[in-house]
Structure formats: C-alpha cells, structure tokens
C-alpha cells in the first residue's frame, strides 16, 4: 500500500497503462513537457517520448478529431481537456463522431479513446474552470461516463478506462487532486471493481445518499456528522459512490434504496435537468412501494457558475446535504 494524492495516483495509473500497451498515447495541451497544468502527466514524456506524449496545438476539437483518426489507425489515445469549461469546442467531435462511430459502422469500428476532464468547482477560479458537464455526455448514447472520487479509484479506473474498447469520458474531481489516499499499486486490475459498478462507501440504514466525484468526500463527512446525537437525533446515512454515470449501476442503487426507503442525490452540477433527475425517475419507478419520501436532489442552482467569492453558496456542502436528508424525514 502506498499513500498517494489523487493526481499522483492518476499519474501512476497512466504510467502503468503506457507500459502495458505500446498503442496507448497521451495527448493534450501542455501534457508533455510541462506534465500538465495539474502535473497529472508529469515525467511521462521524458520516459515515453514525444511520439506518445503529444503536446497538441491549442484546439480542443482538433485534439478529439485527431484522436479519432489515431484510434481508427489502431492506437488508444488518452486525451486531456485542460479544464471542464473548455470541452465545449470538442463536443461536436465527441457527440457526432466519437459516440456514434461504432453504431454508424454496424460494429466494425471501435474507438478506444479516453477523454480526461478535470471537473468541478471549489478552487476559487475564474469563469469556465469549475463546470460539471457530465449530463451532456451521459445523455449521449455510445459514450461511457465515469467519475473517480479518490486516489484508489483514480489509479484503477483510469486503467480500466484505457482498456475499454468504448469511448470513455473520464471526470477527475480537480479540487480533490491533492487529497491523499491508500493505493495498492500492485493489485491486479482483473480483481478490481468493474468500471460500470457503484460502490457503497459507507453503510447505513436510514437514507441512501447517492453521489459521485468531488462530493463523495463531502457526503462522507456529512454522514459522519449526522451520526452524532444532536437535536435532530443521529441518522445512519448510507453513502454510495456512483462511479459510473453512464451506465448507472441501478442494481446497487435500487438495493440500497430498498433497504433504507429514502434517497438523496447530491452533485455539483445544476439540479435542473441534471443527472439527479434521471436517477430520481428510475428510483421512483423501480422502488415505488419502498419509498417513504420522494427522491430529493441537492446540487447547483439554475445559474451559470458564480464568481469565486460566491461559490461556497453555490456548491452543495455538508449542511445542504444534511438539510436534504432532514427533509426526506419530513414526509
């Protein structure tokens, strides 16, 4: 076991992937010489060369489009979009080409492209650097969408994503890049939890709290705070890290909600038309007779991401999550 930050765990995972398969390439702005603006690809170009660690022109659509061409040629490109808010110029290549190529070709072509996107807020940034666009991609058939929440999962999931023959949008919680965690760097990937499964990270009996990415840590902190006896009485919250946003691991989700009878979804993305809505609809349909209360969602407001001085009001924090938990008990 080693203690690694989340960004270092990604770095180790990428290194292993580059070692395991000569077809793996990493490409993006500033990923080579600089090692990435978050140092996630630090030291890799030195060891694997410029042909495999490509500093690309400043053109997001170009990054994804040429990655598609490389994938058609048999390579496994891992693209980096520098910040979540900059993925939008590439959305056409992602949605119209990357997602559809297999379907279009009746299964003859597959594009094993990974697109890494640092996402989410809480870093005090200027505009376009704190977005959570996962719903756009979850809504696009043909893509797999995942979000890692801690160092251990980062190390494992990035390698699983690279090995997947489907295109994967890989969300990394940028404000957690410096969070440390225990990582078994020698563990066999074959025995790891599959990339399309959710994980119950904290067991509980009273309410199921579904979340992913940067809010997993917040949710765990909220659950621990809720255990303490206080004016509201202790509550036992079951925290589930969804990990896979498309497809959703409905088996794990439904089993949990059927045990607890209550469900709260938390994400940074705006609540309106966010992934929580899809989850709530499915849970309501499948667990109707088990529900003591409607599924509640906690997330960003229906506004653009605010200036950084206000972001603490925008981002769901421990109190907002526990407020939602309290509300589910009001039915």
């Amino acid at each position, binding site marked *: 076991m080693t203690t690694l930050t989340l960004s270092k765990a990604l770095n180790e995972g990428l290194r292993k992937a580059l070692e395991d398969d000569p077809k793996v*390439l990493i490409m993006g702005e500033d990923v080579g010489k600089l090692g990435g603006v978050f140092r996630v690809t630090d030291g890799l170009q030195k060891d694997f060369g410029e*042909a495999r660690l490509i500093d*690309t*022109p400043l*053109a997001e*659509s*170009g990054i*994804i*489009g*040429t*990655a*598609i*061409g*490389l*994938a*058609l*040629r*048999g*390579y496994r490109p891992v693209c980096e979009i520098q910040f979540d808010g900059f993925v939008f*110029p590439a959305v*056409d*290549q992602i949605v*119209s*080409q990357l997602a*559809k190529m*297999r*379907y*279009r*070709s*009746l*299964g*003859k*072509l*597959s594009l094993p492209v990974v697109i890494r996107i640092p996402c989410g807020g809480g870093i005090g940034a200027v505009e376009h650097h704190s977005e959570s666009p996962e719903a756009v991609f979850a809504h696009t*058939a*043909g893509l*797999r969408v995942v979000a890692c929440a801690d160092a251990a999962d980062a190390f494992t999931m990035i390698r699983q994503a690279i090995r*997947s*023959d*489907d295109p994967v949008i890989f969300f990394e919680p940028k404000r957690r890049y410096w969070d440390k965690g225990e990582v078994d760097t020698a563990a066999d990937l074959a025995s790891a939890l599959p990339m*399309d499964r959710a994980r119950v990270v904290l067991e509980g009996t009273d309410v199921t709290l579904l979340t992913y990415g940067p809010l997993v840590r917040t949710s765990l902190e909220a659950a621990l705070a809720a255990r303490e006896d206080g004016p509201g009485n202790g509550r036992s919250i079951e925290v589930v890290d969804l990990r896979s946003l*498309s*497809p*959703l*691991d*409905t*088996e794990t989700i439904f089993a949990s909600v059927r045990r607890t009878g209550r469900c709260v979804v938390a994400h940074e993305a705006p609540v309106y038309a966010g992934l929580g809505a899809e989850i709530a609809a499915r849970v309501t349909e499948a667990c109707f007779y088990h529900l003591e209360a409607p599924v509640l969602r906690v997330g960003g407001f229906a506004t653009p991401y605010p200036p950084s001085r206000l972001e603490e009001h925008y981002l769901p924090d421990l109190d907002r999550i526990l407020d939602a938990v309290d509300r589910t008990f009001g039915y």
Partner: protein
Amino acid sequence: MTVEPGGATTAAPASQPSQPTQLTQQAADPSSELIQLLTPEGERIDHPDYPVDLTAADIRDLYRDLVLVRRIDTEAIALQRQGELGIWASLLGQEAAQIGSGRALSPQDMVFPTYREHGVAWCRGIDPVKLLELYRGVSHGGWAPEEHKFHLYTIVIGAQTLHATGYAMGIQRDGAVGLDDEGREGGGGGGEAVIVYFGDGATSQGDVNESFVWASVFNAPVVFFCQNNQWAISEPLEKQSRIPLYQRARGFGFPGLRVDGNDVLACYAVTKKALAAAREGQGPTLIEAFTYRMGAHTTTDDPTRYRLAAELEMWKLKDPIERVRVYLARTGQADPDFFAAIDEEAKKVGAGVREACRTMPDPPPLAIFDNVYTQPNAILQAERDQYAAYLDTFEAGEGAPR
C-alpha cells in the same frame, strides 16, 4: 460580368437575383495556375511537372470508370424520384476529380470521404448498393472501412479532415512514412498516405482549419483534396473565401495547387504526385480540384432558385466524360465497338442498381439496439427487452408504428 478560367466571360442577366461565380483574382495572379492535361475539347497538353505515364488501355479504363460512375449516379437520382431513396447527393460533373484522384491511390492508402465521393468508393471496390443503403435509410454506412481502405461517409461538414489527420499521425507512429516501395516495415509495398475529401464550403469549418494546423505542425502524410464545385447548397464560393482556395495552404505553411477538376488525367497526375510526397515524409498538400456541381446539392434542392442557367450551360461544355471520349476517338485509342460495349455495360450496371435498391430489406426493429457499445450495457439491454415485449403485445402484423 464573370471571369472563368481560360478568360472566357459571360454576362449576368439583370433579372437574376443571385451572384454568378467570380474569380476576379484568377486572371491577375500568375501563381493561380490551373493544371490541365486534357482540354475540354479533348486535346492533350503537356505539363513539365506532371508527366502522364498512362497507357491507352489505362485511359480506356478511366473512361469506363467515368461512364459507369455517372450511370450509377443517374440511376440513384431516378430511384429517389420513385421514392426508393430518401435523398441522393449527386456527383454529376465531378466524376473526373473523383476517378482521377481515386485511381492515383495505392492500395495501402487510406481514404476519408465526405458523402458525395461515390466515384472514389467505386475505385475502392465498394458495391454501389452499400452507398444506396445510407440514402435509403437502411444503415448509416454499410461497408468495412479497413477492408476497402475507405472510411464511412461523414455527414458533418469537414469533421473527417481531423480524422484523416489523426490517422496520418498514426501512420507516422507506425513507421510507415518515408519508405520506398521495397522498404516498408513488416512487408507490403511502399509507405502509406491518407487522402481526405471535402468541398469548398467545408474550408470555412473550424475543424478543417484545425486539421491544416495539425497536419502542417506534425508534417502528417495527408493529402487534402478539395472538390471546389463552386456551390455549398445555395452559397457560392465567394461566401467561403476571398482568395482562391488552394492559396489557403500557404498560410498554414504547406503547398497548395489548383487542378482542372474536370480533367481526369490532370487529377490523376497531381494526386499521384501529392500522395508520393506524403508517403515520402514531405507532409501535406492541398489540392483544389476546380469543378462544378452540375446537379443539385441533394435531390430535394432546387438550384434554379439561386444560380443561372447560363452558368450550367457553360459548364456543360467542359464535361469530363465527353473530352475523354473525343480524345480516345480522335487518337484512335478506342473504336465504336468499345464505346458501345461501355454503354451496354452501363445499362447492366444501372439495372443492377435499380434491382438491388428496390429489393433492399429494412433492418429488423430490434436492430436499433445493436452495436452501440463493445461491452454489454445493462440499461440498454433493459430497454431492448422492454421494447421487444412491447412489440409483442400487438396483434400480428401490427408490429410497427404507422
């Protein structure tokens, strides 16, 4: 007034609302040469940079390609008029650009088309029925790209230029650039190049310009073949560029040239040279094939609403097939029996296309759910099962939405 290559002018009738094609810089700019090896009248011209190494048999084969490809195209238009196809994008007038460049390819080169390159598809051995599938709505693309070294049609304008550039970067990484015919790694003859097709309108797209950036900066082995057919639906060339398109390449730092797109020999020679340069590691070339879209953008378009009949008539005089026929006949490289045999073959090909189209079955409803992912997806599988059960609740024969 319009100025055509070669200096001919036509007057624009006052009553027409639309602008005729203009090439005002054409005559003044000495570098704006139009490479031509066969005039509209069927006369051979020599060009110092482009020797023609084709035999009489080769040229007769090119003639056959041109005639058959036009026949397939014409059949498809008729089929659309009979409701057998949803639409068809006709290549009428552009046969020489496609056959010439298509026949210049080596077997190991990779092609990235738009959605109108039926002539190049023909050269790559794709059964025309496969093209009909797309326009009939039976599939989004029915052939195996690697089998034919011809990627699926891309409908998003210009998107394929990035795919082609990335593919070329992959060729570089495979070490398949800069080899002579004998020295290719792993066997096979010669290095590999990529050719990507796009139109005049596409040159305005961001992706196309990004592909020029990447191809030049990475020196990728890709030939950018632009069929400038003068029109992007109803918008003429001057809406896309102030300067001749081939000159755009200079701004990105790689060679650009303009060829008579209705001259199959010139298109062949120019493309062959550009591909060789790419294969040898000299990087990209932009070829502007100067041609004309004789038909509509697709079968539902009505060009009479935005362009002059006179313009169409003028381009009829530059027909790509006619000049080859005249050349072969006049030089004695083909006799009347040959032309008759080609016409006969065209009839058969046409009948075959009609038959194949009309008997093409629709895919089964549940095929909607196939080929989305490489691995099983529980959510999608559930939807498939649900829909299958839903269909089963209807009386026999009522299985499809009306």
